């Protein structure tokens, strides 16, 4: 499942505070400080490589990156629904 791939990447590469683990799909990524400006850039680069899309800088708004669910929702809108989440 793609949400697992995204969640694992964030947990492995971007979470600095272990008390925030394990991540849930609904864990607030911005409000909790997991994603700041530069870690968001890392995530965007990862998403572009992983899903073969280009994320325009105008698409980088808090509502698209607030949670793993929000990221998947944004990716679905960019990939005709081919990005999937666990039921």
């Amino acid at each position, binding site marked *: 499942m793609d949400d697992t791939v995204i969640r694992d990447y964030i947990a492995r590469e971007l979470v600095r505070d272990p008390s925030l683990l394990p991540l849930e799909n609904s864990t607030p990524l911005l409000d909790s400080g997991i994603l*700041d400006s530069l870690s968001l850039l890392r995530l965007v680069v990862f998403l572009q490589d992983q899903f073969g899309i280009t994320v325009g800088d105008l698409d980088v708004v808090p509502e698209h990156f607030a949670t793993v669910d929000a990221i998947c929702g944004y990716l679905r809108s960019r990939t005709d629904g081919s990005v999937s989440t666990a039921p």
Partner: protein
Amino acid sequence: MMAAPEAEPPVAGLEPIGPDGSGAEQWELRRLGRLAYWAVIAPLAARLPAWAAYRVACAWGDLTFRVWPDRDAEMDHLRRLRGILGEDLLPDDVEAFSREFCRLRACEVVDLMRLHGRGRALRPLVEVRGREHLDAALEAGRGAILCSAHIGSYLSAFSLLHADGIPLTNVGRWDWNYHRQLPTLVKRFWDLAYSRRVLRHRQRPNLEPWQGRPQVAVQAAAALRANEVVMVCSDPAPIPADRARTVETTFLGGRARLVPGVVTLSEITRAPLLMAFTYRLPDYRHQVLEISPPVSLEGGTEAAFERCVAAMDAAVRAHPQDWYFWFHRGELAGLGLLPPSGGSGSETD
């Protein structure tokens, strides 16, 4: 980032409002002098021949030094800094140092005013050294990051690069945008007097890192992808949201906490990272903008950032009066160079 916490000198410098809100509280009569300088005196002086324009600026700097209400306390502050930061950083004659500081800040306003007409009036006064490093970096097609510090008239000097055809964008906070209690009229004034003049010589709007604006690095990366130049000052104290990713490093003889964002941005985008500093020559008219070859990223983020900080440290030591933050206690405390006294200078909200 512009910053001027509680004990700002009363010069008409490029730091109109303190990020701790002090500017809003102290919007009082003595600020009318600053208003007059920005709105009337400096724009008129900037139209004079350079020798006369900067003489006016120096006279204004002398005047503001003489009427500085807290001057004795500020002299004591500087003497204490000598003890904290090292005897070699500041001269024995702190009064002469402070007077020079006031003069330079006043000169910087005239620089800004001389940017009209694609910087024609300022260009002959600024020698750019190392431009070939920037041109070579851009030939690789990944853009370039200029890491600087709040030294000298850096914003005006970078404006000249843009006027010379280099697409350049700032990453930095203009703090008056974040004061909730600051009157709208005051914000509009600084937008007109300051932001408008700077942004005329920028490729994109200012990219302002702040809580609730996580898109800034992505926007900077987009500029680099378009083979543009992104300029970042790495010497301000971190905002609260950034404290978790600061690194402790030796800066001005102390252990400061700084954000290595320029290095991380360079690592992610593979854009070369160059150092660039501006300083003013003793005649007050002429300036030098020095651009370094690319900084090596070998050894990882912290090692590379140590090299950047060492370059900033050397630049401040070589031209100490040109550094903005000597009288900014909040900023110095936020950097870890002074004991904390009620919060970092970078906390606006």
